[in-house]
């Protein structure tokens, strides 16, 4: 049985929201074993904005998938509060994703034949504590585009729909996989602003992975990855506003 405790909010406290203990991930490709994540130990605290940076192939996406319950580690253990994700069944992981996590993908991953509102509904319909869909769309500034299909929206608008979809179920953890990766500079910045604002308003813990080192400047903490290993974790004493970041 999944034991999700959604009551306590930690902000810089000693009790982490997510904990990784010596996590490793190996893919078997034919006769070849490719180790994409090795010996990663990390803690993520409630309410913080953590940015994970690293070049392509550094294992960021794999770690994000493990944290989001999309994939299982080959080694080590992962906890979400007191729930050990690495020991969960498929069903338990599904429930974890349904109740606790919101995903924002690089290519938005909207359902093409559903409108913006319906794409948000996809998420709220299965959530036990959903936000009102119109509120979610208002939060991302898309009230007037709610009945448009993805093909009728710009890249930035599509990503905003994806963010609305992610936050609409009031997740404790928002996982963003290169959320600006497919966007131009200005739009990318607007998306980062939106994420920062939402974190402020909703108190959601945000984990953002990117290969763009400049984005790290807006983080509370930064984790640097290289070749599947954590090479540096540092706190950012004075995070910058997204508008101040240049790349």
């Amino acid at each position, binding site marked *: 049985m999944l034991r999700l405790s959604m009551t306590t909010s930690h902000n810089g406290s000693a009790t982490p929201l997510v904990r990784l203990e010596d996590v490793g991930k190996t893919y078997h490709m034919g006769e070849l074993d490719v180790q994409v994540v090795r010996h990663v130990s990390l803690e993520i605290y409630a309410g913080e904005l953590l940015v994970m940076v690293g070049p392509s192939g550094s294992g960021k996406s794999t770690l994000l998938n493990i944290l989001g319950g999309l*994939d299982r580690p080959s080694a080590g253990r992962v906890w979400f509060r007191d729930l050990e994700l690495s020991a969960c069944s498929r069903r338990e992981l599904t429930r974890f994703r349904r109740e606790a996590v919101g995903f924002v993908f690089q290519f938005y991953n909207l359902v093409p034949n559903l409108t913006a509102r319906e794409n948000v509904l996809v998420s709220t319909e299965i959530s036990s504590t959903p936000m009102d869909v119109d509120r979610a769309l208002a939060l991302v500034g898309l009230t007037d585009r709610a009945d448009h299909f993805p093909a009728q929206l710009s890249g930035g608008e599509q990503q905003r729909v994806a963010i609305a979809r992610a936050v609409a179920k009031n997740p404790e953890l928002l996982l963003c996989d290169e959320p600006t990766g497919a966007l131009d500079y200005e739009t990318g910045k607007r998306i980062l602003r939106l994420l920062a604002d939402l974190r402020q308003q909703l108190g959601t813990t945000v984990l953002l992975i990117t290969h763009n080192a400049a984005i790290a400047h807006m983080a509370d903490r930064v984790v640097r990855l290289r070749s599947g290993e954590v090479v540096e974790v540092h706190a950012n004493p004075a995070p910058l506003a997204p508008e101040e970041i240049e790349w």
Partner: protein
Amino acid sequence: MVSVLDRKLLRELRGAGLLLAAIASILAIGVAMYVALGTAHRNLSHAQQRYYARCRMADFWIEVKKVPLSELEPLARLPAVVEIQPRLQSLVTIDMEHAEQPLNGLVLSLPDQRTKVINDIVLKRGSYFTLARQNEAIVNEAFARRHGLRPGQALHVILNNRRQELVIVGTAVSSEFTYLVGPGSIVPDPDHFGVCYIKQSFAEEVLDFQGSANQVLGRLAPAARARPQEVLRRAELLLEEYGVFSATPLAEQSSHRFLANEIQGLEAFGVINPAIFLAVAVMVLNVLISRLVDQQRVVVGTLKALGYTDGELFWHFAKFGLAVGTAGGLAGCVLGHLLAEAMTALYRLFFEFPTLHNEFYGRAHLMGLLLGMACGVMGTTYGARHAVRLQPAEAMRPRAPQRGGAIALERVRWLWRRLSFGWRMTIRNVVRQRLRSAAGIFAAAMGSCLAMNALLLARASEYMVHFQLERVQRSDLDLVFRDAQGLEAWDEARRLPGVDHAEPVFDLACTLRHGHRSHKGGIQGLAAGAWLTMPRDASGQRVRIPPWGLVLARRLAEKLDVQRGGWVIVEPTQGLRRPVRAPVVEITDSYLGMAAYADLRYLNRLVGEELSITGVQLSVTPEWGLRRQLYRELKQLPAVQAVAARADMIRTVRDTLVKNQRVFIGLLVLFSGVIFFGSVLNSSLVSLAEREREVATLLVVGYTPWQVGGLFLRESMLTNLTGTVLGLPLGYLLSVGITIAYDTEMFRIPVVDPTAIGLVTLCLGMAFGLLAHACVQWSIFKLDWLEALKTKE
């Protein structure tokens, strides 16, 4: 409230319109066949049960020369016999003023006053006999309708060598004549054959049968109905001295046998045909859903990431199939009901029931709908399972390139080197897309199996008519005498106006025995050198009647388990009835009845008769004036019991059986065309959707849309052709199976010209495939290839 995933589903269903319509059509046909055949089966069998109960249908018929009614007591006391009823019957010629030629009829006696009888009648018009006249008659409804006979009108028959006037008081139907065929015919022909019921007292008087009968009907206790042989054997022994011509249980009664065969056939076809269509629909739908799931990899992954469970996703895709299945099921129910209506209308032409309606059987429709839905869901299982198995993390990663290694055929280098680039691409695609190719081959095989089977059956009935009624029987008119005559009757017939040639015939009613096997039938004695009846073997070669010995039809020889050179015992059912041995000297082939032939003189000698004949076959001038004169004379000849015109028989068979069969066979071919069309369209459009970029690239490098279309055509034709070729032997085997199932003593369906029909089927398969390809080619023309090039994989 429609869930958001259901809205997605509805939009996808709308988007895949043409493809889904094709698959739903295949499903609909399967369900329609199930519903139609099931409904027609119930219509017929319920009507039969009601009718038999209402008329108190006999369980056996015993025909005797003449038995005093007082001698029937022991028969009535047989343990299993519940009730017996004697009656009189006589074959007659009917003289209708408006009809040029004499018509044939059967006169039967009924009690003067209405009482409970076996094989009762159901009055349609007019009344039962009254006290007003002795010569009242009730005529069977179809005959009356065809000749415009109404109560109050008079009718003339030659009854016991005397021309008798009968006054019609009513028209009726009876269960024993549900399928009413005249002697020697295979289809009902109310134009030329009718049944007249007359008062028992009048029949006794005109037939000189006071206090006696020539037919006994009986009903058995329910327990004895399944095995009436023992009762009939004892009955024959009891009536032996009165000259038993035949003892027929219900199962062998001609009307019942036709009806029961049809009901049984509907039951068998009601399983085989729908199963073929539904299996094809399941395969084809699987191809489509697999593609859909593949196309929606990322959506599936995202939904999983959002927290949708495997069950929810499986159900989401299963609903796709459920929707197609429901649509196909509903359409199938409507189509099935209409088809059953058409079939029932057709049955009304052949079978005469008091009422035969196309009923609505909720259960058949519900089952049809459920079958459609179940097949729809089964059609999505493979693809939906694939969606469930997909790992969310893996689903959102770019797809690994498809397996691109060499295929087995490439190892045959000398062959591979000879293939063009286009063919190599085609063969690789066919081999790599295993599910799709297998579905295409399976569908084409089933389509070709059905088409081949339908065409073979169509050819068979044409051939049967041609072989039996044009090549074996070649006379224009057959006269049957009431009693055996001397050769002078033949001489007289030869001199009738308009007769070009006449041949005497001696028909001997007898039982043939070989070991413990026996067959009750007859032997036809033909004059040496006769050419108006020409027995033939299967290859169409004439089989000459030898001066001694018997020529048996192959099925009769098989039934008796006797070969050429063997001996059989001939036990005449008339005359001295002394059993004699006769050698089997030749085997012939026959598709109607179980014929046996012998030389006329030999046959007479064999049974110790003087040289006598029972009928004459005539070749008649086509000149209409002389024919009319001949018919007029024949109507006046009391010795003639029946006149059969071959041309009429051929026309009736062609007008009813063959023509109607053609409609249904045409429908079957069309249905199999839906399989070819639907399957090729599905696999090609799915393939096109998958390879839009490849198509766009080929167009960019300078291929014309026709050339690109050619690549798809090759692929679809390769699977289509392979499947069609594989289906041909299946269709042949199915036809052979049907001929075995329908191999009755009355007729055998031949399987003829399988090679030519195979070629026609092949052409049909290709034609339907090309038609589907035309839609694919149109899609290639329509393709926005610049957009396709931008499409993200």
